[in-house]
């Protein structure tokens, strides 16, 4: 798409004074660097107030505080910001950046403890104990019941854990907690006033509900957001997504605006490459040590997910036929990306099934689709072997897989079943039961 200028919208959280200052500094720098063909709007969520900034040269930078602080975690807050920006700024393609902290998928926790229906007392009425945190893994029996050693009956994803002998406490009669759909997915935030998180499901809903229904460039300036699950969810509301696989640092916003100012007719793909290049320059200069990638969305992401589904089907078969190599690939050889629950997608498909012809053919298809959609990528040497997209792949026996994927579109991918089968097959150590 050829353009005659850009609207850059930044939706940011300044929870600490330091974060807040970083955003306001970036706003001042962007305003200084911008021109009449690059319009900037920022919604900054701080403690007790939400401020919108408007930079439309030749006018001065304008700031307005909303009468009531907006909850950054509410999709409606993002929709409202987008709609106001669409009305107020001249018509132009939109680059939306969500800038805050994040920690990968939300709803990551241990399996809930098994109910004890025969035990008299309050537990039998209200369900068993609250789920232990990750710090206290439940025992083998807590997770898999007595049938754990049989490696039988994996749970279904998105279905609430039926069939595996697992009865999540939240599903006990009288204790069921209904979560709105947008409360599943990644964990971006938190809002400084409510402590709540916006998820990628919520982002999708917010952008789809806005007057333009989509943005050209969607940037996620937060840690661990370049994952297949997250970007798959957002594929329908953006042409290009830019995110980091690792612990991310703030982007060089001034340089990004300068790139648009220098060439306002940048296409969507050119702008995406320019953003990655600005980060690359800082990595080369030694002032940052993270990674960033720009990937095409839409049909390209659908094709990648479909190719990966076929690959995951073959990988499932390998769990039974070649457990040793599957275990080694996941536990040792595939590149992790700071986050212990995520693995680099390309590294995984090169390691998992590398001795199996069918898996290699399926992996090659995944690689082909991935390289076709990857517009740009850069990574610091401190992150070797990251290629631009991660995948949820915990190594532990006690992370609740069902809840991690619940509510996301990716839960129907065969990879979800692979994870389930892999986790069941992992040997349990005495420590699992003792801790």
């Amino acid at each position, binding site marked *: 798409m050829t353009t005659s200028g850009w609207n850059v919208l930044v939706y940011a959280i300044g929870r600490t004074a330091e974060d807040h200052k970083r955003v306001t500094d970036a706003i001042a720098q962007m305003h200084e660097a911008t021109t009449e063909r690059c319009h900037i709007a920022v919604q900054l969520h701080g403690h007790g107030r939400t401020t919108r900034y408007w930079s439309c040269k030749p006018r001065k930078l304008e700031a307005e505080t909303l009468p009531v602080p907006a909850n950054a975690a509410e999709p409606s807050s993002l929709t409202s910001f987008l709609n106001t920006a669409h009305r107020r700024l001249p018509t132009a393609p939109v680059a939306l950046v969500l800038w805050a902290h994040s920690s990968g998928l939300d709803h990551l*926790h241990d399996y809930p403890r098994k109910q004890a229906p025969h035990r008299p007392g309050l537990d039998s009425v209200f369900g068993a104990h609250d789920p232990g945190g990750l710090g206290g893994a439940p025992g083998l029996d807590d997770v898999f019941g007595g049938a754990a050693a049989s490696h039988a009956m994996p749970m279904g994803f998105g279905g609430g854990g039926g069939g595996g002998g697992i009865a999540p406490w939240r599903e006990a009669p009288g204790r069921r907690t209904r979560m709105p759909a947008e409360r599943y997915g990644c964990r971006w935030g938190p809002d400084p006033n409510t402590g709540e998180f916006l998820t990628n499901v919520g982002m999708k809903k917010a952008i789809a509900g806005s007057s333009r229904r989509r943005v050209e460039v969607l940037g996620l300036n937060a840690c661990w957001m370049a994952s297949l699950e997250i970007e798959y969810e957002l594929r329908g509301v953006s042409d290009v997504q830019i995110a980091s696989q690792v*612990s991310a640092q703030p982007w060089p916003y001034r340089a990004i605006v300068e790139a648009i100012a220098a060439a306002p007719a940048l296409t969507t793909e050119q702008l995406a490459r320019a953003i990655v290049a600005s980060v690359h320059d800082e990595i080369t200069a030694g002032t940052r040590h993270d990674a960033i990638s720009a990937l095409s969305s839409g049909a390209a992401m659908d094709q990648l997910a479909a190719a990966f589904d076929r690959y995951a089907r073959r990988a499932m078969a390998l769990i039974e036929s070649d457990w040793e190599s599957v275990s080694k690939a996941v536990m040792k050889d595939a590149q992790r990306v*700071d986050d212990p629950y995520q693995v680099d997608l390309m590294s995984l498909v090169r390691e998992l099934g590398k001795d199996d012809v069918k898996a290699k053919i399926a992996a090659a298809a995944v690689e082909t689709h991935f390289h076709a959609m990857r517009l740009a990528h850069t990574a610091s040497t401190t992150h070797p072997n990251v290629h631009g997209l991660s995948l949820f792949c915990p190594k532990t026996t006690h992370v609740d897989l069902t809840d991690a994927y619940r509510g996301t579109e990716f839960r129907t991918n065969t990879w979800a079943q692979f994870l389930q089968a892999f986790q069941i097959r992992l040997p349990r150590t005495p420590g699992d039961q003792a801790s």
Partner: protein
Amino acid sequence: MPARKLTRKKSDQPTRTARRAVSAPRFTRVTKSLKLSVPPDCEASVILKLVGHDERRYYAWWLLVGRYDQETMTASYRFTGEDTVRCDIPTGMPLSAATLQPYLARFLKGEHNQEDDAPVIIKGKPK
């Protein structure tokens, strides 16, 4: 209001010997495989690895080597990509999760990443 004169009462306590301050543990980020060996001014070196996160971040004791006088242990660590931190513990500092946790939290906060600033917990032994 006249300024109040401050007088210090002479203490009848004998002068206390100032306790020698123990220097803080030194943290560095691990980004590649390495041979872990304890520096001369330290008693132990530890690798802490991120093993889980929810509302908190959990690090596990992954590798620990010690030193006594001129004798020191060296061990190889293979970096697999997870968030991994090396900690050199100076002589005289207790080796415990409770002691290291605040220092680790400060080190991570100082990195200014866009990561959720969740509390840090070091799991398991030594306690």
